[in-house]
């Protein structure tokens, strides 16, 4: 499953996507993110399975544009800590 967390508003589209087929629930992204955007839980979209997956916390979903801002300067953009930490390449950002 491709889980897209975030929103679209007048200023643009801000989604963090987690590919749950690739995600192992290891939690490396949770450690890597300086702002606590991720958590690992039982897959909320598949209540009949016990698989652990990374999700974007409920509190951050409506403001990731702002929370992720410091990792995304307008120029000289370094690799994103969460994307770099994920060895399974399960995380991507839309903006």
């Amino acid at each position, binding site marked *: *499953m*491709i*889980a*897209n967390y*975030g*929103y*679209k*508003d*007048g200023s643009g*589209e801000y*989604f963090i996507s987690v590919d749950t087929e690739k995600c192992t629930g290891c939690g490396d992204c949770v450690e890597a993110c300086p702002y606590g955007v991720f958590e690992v839980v039982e897959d*909320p*979209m*598949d*209540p*009949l399975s016990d698989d652990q997956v990374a999700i974007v916390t409920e509190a951050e*979903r*409506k*403001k990731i544009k702002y929370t992720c801002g410091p990792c995304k300067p307008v120029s000289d953009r370094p690799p994103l800590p969460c994307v770099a930490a994920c060895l399974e390449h399960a995380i991507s950002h*839309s903006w």
Partner: protein
Amino acid sequence: MAEDTTSKDYWRWTESNWHDPDMDWREGDIISAGVDVGSVSSQTVIMVDGKLYAYSNMRTGSDSPKSAENAMDWALEGTGMTLDDIHYAVGTGYGRVNVPFAKRAITEIACHARGANFMYGPTIKTVLDMGGQDCKAIRVDQKGKVVSFLMNDKCAAGTGRGMEVFADLLGVHITKVGEMSLQVDEEPPMVSSTCVVFAKSEASALLREGWPKEKVLAAYCLAMAHRVVGLLERLGIEEDFAITGGIAKNIGIVSRVEKELGIKALKPSLDTQIAGAIGGALFATALLKKERKKK
């Protein structure tokens, strides 16, 4: 509940409840319930062995647990069933953790996917749920499992709340908006599709310029349709396609979404607002079976 056309509550829509008089629930092995407490409306669906038995659809009050109880009581009305007869209840929706009698809370995305699969059959692949304060685009497989999704609940554009703002501005009942918006000779240019506040100020200017209400509503319905199509396109659309939620009852939006996508939405056989609660009840059935197997 009879609609009071003189009321100033332009957001008010018709509440309803139903149960199948031909089904004897006492014969059933598993009685399950799904309770969807949304920001605007709450629904309860009761199923007997995975078959739809009863439902209710009403407004959410200021208190989530009370709203859940009210929706449950109204679904049970006239059935002879009591809350104690229900083996497993699932809460879903915005207020899902506040359903006092639910054994488990499940996210509305999973419930809508599952509910749409029940309502429209296994050929349904793309679901657009337009609720009171959010908009969800969901791709599902033939079993009703989520393949991909996105949800927009940060911004009022493309939600029922945005439509309420316009119903209020124009003094038109929300249930009449869709039809009225189609009473134009040709489609006007749309107002801002990205922000309800900006769309509202544009609409106020158009009204001052002398535009009739129908034309202003058309301009907003177009904007709203454009907005949700943009969300859908992020996921990709595959037929069959269906729209659920309260806005699915608004012909002005549905027809414009269909037109922009170039595909038709499946006609609903059930109240489009109960999709989430149906999914909840189906999960309740499945979870109870799983629990019984373990024992």
